[in-house]
Structures are given as C-alpha cells and as structure tokens.
C-alpha cells in the first residue's frame, strides 16, 4: 500500500468546538434573538417575561413557528408557498362553517374532530394540487402559489357570504369543554410549568392566587412540528432527499431521488401547517374571519430566511427557524409590553433583519461552495 498524500481538502483548518459553533449557520439568528430578548426585557421593565408575558409571547411565537417550519422545509427543497396565509383563512372558514352549519352534503352536525378532519382532507388535497401543478408545469412556484393566494382568499370570502351571509363567525359554543379534540387544539398545555412557577413563589395575581395556568395548546403543536421536522431533515433519508431536491434537482434525480414526490409532499406539509395554525385559532377563540392569516405567508418566508434558510434552496436548519420565530414573535408582540412604542416599528424591524439575513445567508452559501 502506498502512502496516501494529504489532499487539498485537508487544507481546511482544524477547528475546536467554539470555532465550529461560531461558524454554524444558525449563529446569526441566535445572536439576533439574544439581543432582542435582552432589549425587550429592559424596555418592558420585565413585563414581557412575567407569567402572562411569557404565555402571550409563546402564543405568537408558536403561531409563527408552525407555519415557518413548513415554509422553511419547502424552501430548502427549492420552492415557495405564497398560499399559506390564504390557506389559513380557508381552513378556519371551513372548520367554523361546519361547526355552525353542519357537515357538507347534509351529513349532520359536525364534531370538532370531524370538522377538522374534513378540512384537513381538503387542504391536503389543495396542497397536492398545488404541488402537482408546480412540478408538472415546471412553472415557478412563486406564480402558481400567488394564484392560489388570490383563489383561496376569494373562495373563502365567497363561501362565507353564500352560506353564512357574513364574512365572520363568532359566538360558537366553547367546544373545549365538551371535546377532547378542541381542547387539544385550543386549550392549555404544560400547566405543570406554571404550577411550578407558582410553587416557587412567582406567577401571582393581585389577590395572591395563581395567575396563569398554562400555555396555549399551539405551543405543543409547534414543538411537535418543529421536532418532527428537525428529525426528518437531519436524520432521515427523506431529509437527505429534501436537501438534494433543493440543491440541484437534476443531480438528485440522476441518483434516484424522487424529486417530484418530495416537492408535492412538502406543498402538502405547508398546507398541513396552515391547517393546524387555523385549528388552534378557531378552537381557542371560537370565532373565524375571512381575513385570518393575511400576510402570514410572507412572515413565514421572512422567518425562514432570518433563520438561515437559503432563498435558492438546498440549505437551512429547523433550529435556525426556531430562533427566527422567537425573534420575530417577540418583536411583533413588543408593542403590548412597551406602551410608548409605535407598533409599526415591527415591520421596520422585520424588513431590516430580513435584508441583513439575506446578506448573511449569501455569505454562508459562498463559504460552503468555495466562493462560486
């Protein structure tokens, strides 16, 4: 056996764990998140992180996190979904309408679970249709899903007016008390966290009783969705296929990766995330409105990018998206904790961070591809 030469690839510096951590793609999102947490803590006199503050912040972070996870996975596979926001409106309308007016085709009254199941079947079908149109036509997913953004929002409003005579439904009974499923979607979770907080002497209201009893259920759903997405992306064959599809789909295809199936599946996944988002909202508030989910698709994409997902596909991480969701969620909510601030600064902030993130991501991409 002849001596193996050290090759050019080994000219890469050997790094210790600190250097490796600093070079991780999520580090930018993490730093921004840390700065926001500290700044918000002081600007709100700690109110943003008292018992109720944490609950309210986590509620909006989880909302963002659920749809951003779907958007990020799809972006890693090289496609966009602009229909997420309209899908939320459509799913919310569908569930609330069935709860109020009964199942379609005269199938009788709808239980919360039946309303959800029928709605999910519809949204998954829509995701499948969108995916098929994109992969079969070869058109940009930007345009195809922009079409569905309008189509679904319009369908939602028309359906509301035709059946309900009004574009909102309110005053539904509180299904959480009668249905395990509604409670799972709109109830409270992790009560032990607030019990422990109370037990340790915090979490008190003005009368000295326990103040907050639990997080919104969507927190659990976010943890589940992000956890499964992380596992799939980093530890499974499907994850490798998602990366391969978004990086160079011809190379992926040549190696036997079912590129089209991966994409269609991910369009269905974003539809699933939108449906969970809508279900948590409907069963939490017992209302629905044709305008729900407006602009959420753009916020989901912004969070994915802030979290380090490349616009061009092939690269991204669920952990980064979690940091991005926390950052954007906290800033979106900041107006409630800092009374003197104008709520529109939220958009100024998101715009600025988004631009900074795009530049940072581009640098990461160049570093990985050796500057090409």
């Amino acid at each position, binding site marked *: 056996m002849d001596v193996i030469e050290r090759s050019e690839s080994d000219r890469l510096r050997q790094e210790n764990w600190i250097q490796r951590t600093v070079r991780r793609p999520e580090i930018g999102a993490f730093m921004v998140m840390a700065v926001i947490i500290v700044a918000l803590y002081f600007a709100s006199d700690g109110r943003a992180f008292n018992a109720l503050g944490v609950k309210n912040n986590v509620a909006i972070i989880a909302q963002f996190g659920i749809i951003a996870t779907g958007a990020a996975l799809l972006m890693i596979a090289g496609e966009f979904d602009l229909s997420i926001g309209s899908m939320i409106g459509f799913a919310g309308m569908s569930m609330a309408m069935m709860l109020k007016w009964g199942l379609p085709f005269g199938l009788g009254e709808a239980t919360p679970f039946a309303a959800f199941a029928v709605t999910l079947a519809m949204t998954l079908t829509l995701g499948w249709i969108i995916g098929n149109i994109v992969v079969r036509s070869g058109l940009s997913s930007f345009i195809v899903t922009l079409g569905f953004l309008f189509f679904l929002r319009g369908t939602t409003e028309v359906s509301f007016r035709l059946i309900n005579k009004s574009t909102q439904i309110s005053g539904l009974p509180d299904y959480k008390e009668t249905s395990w499923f509604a409670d799972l979607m709109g109830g409270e979770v992790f009560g032990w966290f607030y019990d422990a907080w109370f037990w340790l002497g915090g979490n008190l209201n003005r009368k000295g009783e326990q103040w907050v009893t639990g997080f919104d259920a969507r927190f659990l759903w976010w943890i589940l969705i992000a956890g499964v997405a992380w596992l799939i992306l980093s530890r*499974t*064959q499907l994850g490798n296929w998602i990366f391969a599809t978004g990086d160079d789909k011809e190379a992926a295809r040549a190696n036997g990766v079912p590129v089209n199936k991966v994409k269609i599946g991910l369009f269905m996944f974003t539809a699933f995330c939108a449906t969970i988002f809508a279900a948590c909202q409907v069963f939490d508030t017992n209302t629905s409105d044709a305008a729900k989910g407006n602009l959420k698709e753009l916020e989901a994409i912004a969070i994915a990018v802030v979290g380090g997902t490349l616009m061009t596909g092939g690269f991204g991480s669920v952990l980064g998206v979690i940091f991005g969701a926390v950052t954007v969620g906290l800033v979106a909510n900041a107006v409630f904790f800092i009374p003197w601030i104008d709520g529109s600064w939220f958009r100024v902030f998101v715009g600025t961070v988004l631009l900074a993130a795009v530049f940072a991501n581009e640098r990461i991409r160049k570093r990985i591809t050796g500057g090409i």
Partner: protein
Amino acid sequence: MAGQPYMRVENLVKRFGPFTALAGVSLEIFPGEVHALLGDNGAGKSTLIKILAGVHRASEGQIYVEGRPVTFRSPRDATAAGIGTVYQDLALNQLMSVTRNFFMGREIKNRLGVLKMDEMDRIAHDEMLKIGIDFSDPTQAVGTMSGGQRQTLAIARAIYFGAKVLILDEPTSALGQKQQMGVLKTIKKVRKRGDIAIIFITHNEIHSRLVADRYTFLALGKVIGAGTRDSLEHGEIRRLMAGGAEMADLEQELESV
C-alpha cells in the same frame, strides 16, 4: 486476449428519425482494463454511452453482459447490471456534505428509518481512501472540494454501488493540469483492482496514452480503428483521433486558408 470480456457490444445502431448517430459499433470491455473511447465531436461517443447507460435504446444490435444478452429499459436497469456512468456534471450537490452526496438516493437507515450517519461517514471515507483521497472530514460540503476530488467522489460512489463497468465521460476536461493528473491517477488505482472495467471517454490523446490498455476510435458513428496499446503506433493514434483524415491533409488545408 485477456480472459472473457465483461461486456460485449455487437453492431449497435442508433437512429434518431432520419439521422443515423451510430452505424454499427462493436466493442469488447474487459475487467481490469481501461478502454479509451476516442473521437471528435459528433462521432457518436455520447450516443454510445447513453445506450450503455440505459438512457437511450439501440435501434439495432445487442449488448451482452457476462455473455448474456441484456436490454436496458432505463438507467436503473443499467445500474443493476453493473454499468456505472459518471457524467461530466458528476450529479453532485455542492451544498451537501461528502457523505450525503455519496449516499444520495441510497441512504443507509436503521429499522426506524433513521440514517446511520456514522456508518455512512466511515464508508464514504474508506471508499474514497481506496482510490486515493484521504478525507479527514466527510461532513464537509462538496462545494469546498476541487474538481478532481469531486471526480473521485463520483467514481468511488459508482464503484461502491456495484459498478463493474465504469463509464467516465470526459473526466479530464474542464480541469486544471494538476487535477487532470489526479484523475488519471484515480483511474489507474481503479484499474489496479482488476475487477472493474473502465470506459474512458476523452478528446485528449496524451491522457489516453497514459492510462489506456485498449482503444476504440469513432468517427461519424462508425468504428474507424481499434486495438490494444501495443498494436497501435503513436502516429496511428494521432491520425485516428483526427477522425481518420491524414494529418498531412489537415495541415495542407490549414496552409491554404
């Protein structure tokens, strides 16, 4: 004759409508040998390898693998028969790690469907070591590798997944001088294993002389010359490379411009 050919191609004809791309090509591919396939642009090299790789189907003629007649309906069939093709674009993804590229589409997973990353890292490292590159870190992105190293990765991958015939489509073009030598070294190492036949497609006469045992020259869809390394004169190779035209004729033509 060095034993039995692993693959034999008889009288392959490929017509695209009225156009005849291949007009009866025959080849014999022996394990442990490098078979250089030379010819000018439009000679039919690409058509030939696409038929061998299962991308196109021949209009006439027959392919035999280990003496048995075979028909490739798809690239999958060809791969299953042990024909591994490394195209010029290599089918690699730059942003993904060496390991993830190595196993792209054929990942190793446990019963729960979770990837065995450590095992895959080790196999990718060992397989590339066998043909000459020691990668200390198979988790690095392919984008950080040189062109020659990417070739090696693609070749190692094809061999690991069962290629007995390795088709290399112009592996040395679009590379720097030093990296071209690296690829030729890799070809030699694969040849040394003795069980793999290599079809080396090239424009470069010098490169073919450095590694090839056997030559086939194509021009206008026909074999215009073939033979072993020893049976061909240097001048003969050069003449055949130019598509059979006498170099003197070419020189004359150039003079007259």
